[in-house]
């Protein structure tokens, strides 16, 4: 696998007022790999993603992007680096069509006028590149699409800009079986195209189906980041619910392989979100 991770976070701390949500979190995402970010509700997954995408500033810690230290202070900074987030609620405009949604806020223009043909072509190429065959017409309003198709449009929107890191927040949460399989296939294809993909999910089947690595958060601490092949289903569940499993996880049980917690095992005052 590639030597330098695309994104490396070291020692990230984040508090909202008196509540410390992330403590000393380390996280890496590698190009060509799907990294699953798991954790219980309130473990800090969403906060971590919002820190990466520049919505929340971090209190402390280092960001390395392609080995270089960077600072991400706004969503624009993140987008400039090639980091795109697909949120759970997708953020699509129902009254606009697929092309219009994909280019929203970054429309191609020739002079003052929107360059619709170019946008339509680029959208078609992107969707074709992702082997998406399910949409009938690119000029369909998003309101007429199914949940899986909307997810597809949202993901295609994220990869349209030659992005390098795509973060997907629970992409399959609201989908049926067939559509989930479709979206997971798409997630896999993104990684196979060389992108780094971070997949947030509660669904262990999804996680084991597509991910190369699993990063587990427990009450704001990164308790383990390991290869999917080196861990079992039940170990991940233990990491999510108890923060440790065998020799993985919080230091109480000895040296963790990836999670080097702050040493304190007093986690009860930890994250609420």
């Amino acid at each position, binding site marked *: 696998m590639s030597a330098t991770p695309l994104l490396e976070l070291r020692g990230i701390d984040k508090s909202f007022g008196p509540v410390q949500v992330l403590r000393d979190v380390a996280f890496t995402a590698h190009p060509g790999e799907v990294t699953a970010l798991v954790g219980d509700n309130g473990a800090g997954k969403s906060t971590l993603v919002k820190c990466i995408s520049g919505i929340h500033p971090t209190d402390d810690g280092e960001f390395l992007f392609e080995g270089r230290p960077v600072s991400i202070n706004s969503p624009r900074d993140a987008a400039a680096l090639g980091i795109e987030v697909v949120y759970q609620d997708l*953020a699509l*405009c*129902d009254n606009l069509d697929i092309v219009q949604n994909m280019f*929203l*806020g970054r429309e191609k223009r020739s002079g*003052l006028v929107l360059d619709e043909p170019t946008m339509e*072509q680029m959208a078609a190429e992107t*969707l074709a590149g992702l082997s998406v065959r399910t949409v009938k017409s690119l*000029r369909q309003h998003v309101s*007429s699409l199914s949940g899986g198709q909307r997810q597809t449009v949202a993901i295609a929107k994220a990869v349209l800009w030659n992005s390098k890191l795509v973060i997907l927040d629970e992409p399959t949460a609201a989908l049926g079986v067939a559509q989930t399989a479709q979206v997971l296939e798409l997630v896999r294809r993104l990684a196979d195209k060389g992108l780094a993909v971070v997949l947030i999910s509660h669904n262990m089947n999804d996680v084991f189906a597509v991910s190369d690595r699993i990063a587990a958060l427990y009450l704001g601490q990164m308790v383990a980041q390991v290869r999917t092949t080196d861990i079992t289903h039940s170990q991940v569940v233990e990491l999510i619910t108890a923060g440790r499993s065998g020799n993985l996880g919080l230091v109480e049980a000895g040296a963790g392989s990836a999670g080097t917690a702050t040493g304190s095992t007093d986690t009860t005052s930890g994250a609420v979100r």
Partner: protein
Amino acid sequence: MTTTAVKKEGPAPVAPAPTVGNHIRDYVSRVRGGDIGALPAVLGLVVLCTVFAVMRPSFLTAGNFANLFTQGAAVTLIAMGLVFVLLLGEIDLSAGFASGVCAAILANVATVLGYPWYVAVLAAIATGVVIGTTLGVLVAKIGIPSFVVTLAGFLAFQGIVLMLMDDGANISIRDQTLVAIANRNLPPVLGWSLAAAAVAGYAAVQLLRYRNRAARGLLTDPITVVAARIGALALILGVAVYILNLERSRNVLFTSLKGVPIVVPIIAILLVLWTFVLQRTSYGRHVYAVGGNSEAARRAGINVDRIRISVFVICSSMAAVGGIVAASRANSVDPNTGGSNVLLYAVGAAVIGGTSLFGGKGRVLDAVLGGAVVAVIDNGMGLMGYSSGVKYVVTGVVLLLAASVDALSRRRSAAAGTR
């Protein structure tokens, strides 16, 4: 004729070939799915015109046809601005009296201070911009609901008109250019050339787009449909200009009265301008986006507050233009200019035309179609001798009908999964 345009093996997803049949089927299924657009307004216009023409033959005369335009002009112009505000799901209740304030400024600058007409017009429009900015900032930055902000404006502007009018005395407009806007006509030849230019311009835009898309292997509308659209526009403009160029004077020896009223090209130019802004610029795209899902727009990096302020600026500026036309038509400005039914007629025009009160859906053309419906009702019922009381009730009922069509089509499209 089934025109299968030059479709190269493009990456575009395979869609049914662009035949006329498919085009019509698409349209029908869109309408059935609740996306009815301007259909009710067009049907309503046809029905109303037929009824009035049968009941009162004088409705169909060239003179009355010209009257319709000048009567409906101010309301239509205000409605065009309101479309922008409605697209965001907001409302501007102060647009009527904002037009009154701007008209009062116009009259004061032109008549009382004696400046030339263009200074007065600029002053009026600048007043509109200031009003719109104030309303927009209050709504977007402070977060007061637009209903409340503009209701406050409705009251306050009414007072400002009174103060500008020296407590009730009306000011007459004597500048001939200003009076001409709503009272004079274009020479018949100019009317024909403008109509020809409009058709030629429309045809050029449509054909260029067709060629451009076909050359890139993108899906196009069938050329027959494109040609039909151009033909329809040519027909409508041709008939309208022909009728307006007929002699309307009762006594030709005394005075000749023919030609397209000057307000008509003014409305047409503003219609084209604002349609261009909404449909073909990224600003317009962002207006629709904010109206559809403001959170998505914000995440896409669109400055939602700026869009929100800008639509109020456009609305109040268009209200200023409407005020200028109203002042010109009345030859004077009085404390009731922009008052009474103007605002509700304007909101009604936009909604009757098919602009949704829920935001995200609407076109500037809706304001013109709806404005025509309102003008026809007002004019036709006047000809039939009904009191203004009855006219208000009927217009109110029509507005209610339009709003329920809007709400029902929304429900229908929710059920059809197209929204």
